[in-house]
């Protein structure tokens, strides 16, 4: 049985006086225990909203979540707020993008770690403090005892993200969701944090959902990758297959727009034209069609369905062929 089984998940935001906005449109994927799965796409593709929906962190009012999120077979979407509160931090942990704003500025680091332990493992404060120092040590924070009494502004960016990872993993959840955990950090620190995450999930057997716009992050970490566009999964494949042979023009474009060290000198980067539309027109053809170099007549008329071919899922009428040069 999969650890997490997301099927046909949709999130529609409804605000008074505004037309409803579909942020996630029938997303399905699953995560096996200990597996690392990537959700990749530009901002606005629905990857963060998907993660918030899984965590039950979307506002109760104004966000309509449908479909199914099964965790170890149990449906999370039908849990009450209180039941979901019992699960968050214990079964599912989350690490967010900006470590400075994600930490409470007026509470010492120690308490921000121990409060999870007190809540879910019923530890008394003193014992939790010892455990917290141990946790900070595990995520590579030097001199953890002293750090317990320090405040977020006294830590460096990398340290803060390490502390947040320690908090998320404090109760040994079976699933960790990391939403762009390295975007706000220096490049050198980014690599350290990714290595730390990889090491931790390997050692503890925690499954990881890695949310990122950066295929470089995916390349080093994920077993399986879901590429999202306009609130839908457009391509899913094992990491190696995806990088060796991207089939969806969007995936291809994402890869082509990354600078490569092994590319010939003077070769131009190929950007994807345009930007994500505000609302997602999946009901009239393919949402990516207006930006797609491979678009055909059918692309704007018939909405492509998810098809399986040699172990990967693809939603495209005219996928990229091997050795095809895609015009910019």
């Amino acid at each position: 049985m999969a650890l997490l089984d997301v099927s046909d998940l949709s999130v529609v935001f409804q605000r008074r006086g505004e037309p409803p906005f579909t942020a996630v449109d029938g997303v399905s994927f699953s995560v096996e225990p200990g597996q690392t799965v990537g959700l990749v796409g530009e901002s606005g593709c629905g990857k963060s909203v998907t993660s918030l929906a899984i965590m039950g962190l979307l506002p109760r009012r104004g966000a309509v979540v449908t479909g199914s999120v099964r965790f170890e077979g149990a449906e999370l979407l039908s849990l009450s707020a209180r039941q979901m509160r019992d699960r968050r931090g214990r079964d599912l942990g989350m690490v967010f993008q900006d470590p400075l704003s994600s930490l409470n500025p007026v509470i010492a680091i120690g308490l921000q770690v121990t409060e999870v332990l007190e809540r879910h493992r019923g530890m008394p404060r003193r014992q939790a403090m010892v455990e917290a120092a141990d946790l900070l040590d595990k995520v590579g924070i030097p001199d953890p005892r002293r750090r317990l009494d320090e405040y977020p502004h006294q830590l460096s960016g990398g340290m803060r993200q390490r502390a947040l990872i320690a908090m998320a993993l404090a109760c040994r959840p079976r699933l960790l969701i990391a939403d762009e955990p390295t975007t706000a950090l220096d490049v050198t620190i980014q690599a350290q944090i990714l290595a730390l995450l990889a090491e931790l999930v390997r050692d503890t057997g925690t499954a990881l959902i890695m949310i990122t716009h950066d295929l470089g992050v995916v390349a080093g970490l994920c077993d399986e990758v879901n590429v999202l566009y306009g609130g839908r999964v457009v391509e899913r494949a094992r990491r190696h297959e995806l990088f060796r042979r991207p089939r969806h023009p969007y995936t291809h474009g994402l890869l082509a727009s990354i600078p490569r060290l092994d590319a010939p000198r003077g070769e131009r980067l190929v950007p994807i034209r345009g930007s994500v539309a505000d609302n997602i027109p999946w009901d009239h053809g393919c949402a990516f069609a207006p930006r797609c170099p491979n678009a055909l007549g059918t692309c704007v008329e018939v909405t492509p369905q998810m098809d399986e071919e040699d172990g990967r899922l693809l939603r495209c009428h005219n996928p990229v062929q091997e050795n095809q040069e895609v015009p910019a």
Partner: protein
Amino acid sequence: MLRYTLRRLLQLVGVVLVLSMLIFGWLRALPGGPVSALLGERGTEEARRELTAQLGLDQPIFVQYGKFLGRALSGDFGASTGVQPGDSAIEIFLQRFPATVELSVVAIVLAVLFGIPLGYLAARRRGGWLDNLGVVGSLVGVAVPVFFLAFLLKYLFAVQLGWLPASGRQTGGLDATRVTGFFVLDGLLTREWDAAADALAHLVLPAMALATIPFAVIFRITRAAVLDVLDEDYVRTAESKGLTTSVIRRRHVLRNAMLPVVTTIGLQTGALLAGAVLTEKVFAFPGLGEALALGFERRDYPVLQLMIIMAAMVYVLVNLVVDLSYAVIDPRVRTR
């Protein structure tokens, strides 16, 4: 922290000195004066001259100020000419200060006790009936003049319904023992429960009138601050840890939202005296405000000078306490 406190206290000395000059000059620039106030229109020229000399008002203003400052430094602020003629200004101040402190403390406690929880609830249920009622109500609270509200409360609860006393600090015939000058506290200390209850009953209406503006301001600031904090990433982090709502509310939302609220409480406490002048007047409550109003009517220079200087000192001290409490709440201020 200690250095900071000392520096602020030193600043206080400068503030008081400059203010004493301003108030000294300004009072004497007002039309009329203690002589006209005491003798009235019909005082003879000779009597006026005599009284002017007696009060030392015939000397150049610099000389007058020098003498005032010299005496003030040794604790003598002169004798009252109009409020309670003959009593020393200090004596009058000490008599009335506890009354106003008592009234202000009850008022600010009411304002905080209602303002913060209601502000929090309004923010949590944004757009709900409590929020809308609170926002409109607090606007009315700020807009309605204090004296009008004071009259209204007095008319309704004291005159019409007779639930609460209409004026004064305590009923005359009680023969309560005086210890500190704070009547409620005195009653509790001496176990004269009826005296304490009576003094408290006298405080309710004036305190309600005085509390409206601070309540309205604290409510609005709390609401806005909580709305800001609820959108913060660290609240989402706290939610992602599955913490209980009460921990999230106390530790993560309110603690951060309190920063602007504490500043507001300080400013409102400092500004209470302005409201106290009107409220005390309406309820014939013998505090500083009433003495100040009477002092202006009768051009009582010694009393006015002392009271205004003391009011300024209290204002500066309250704000010092606010700034120091910042360091307690916010570690980012502490390390600076």
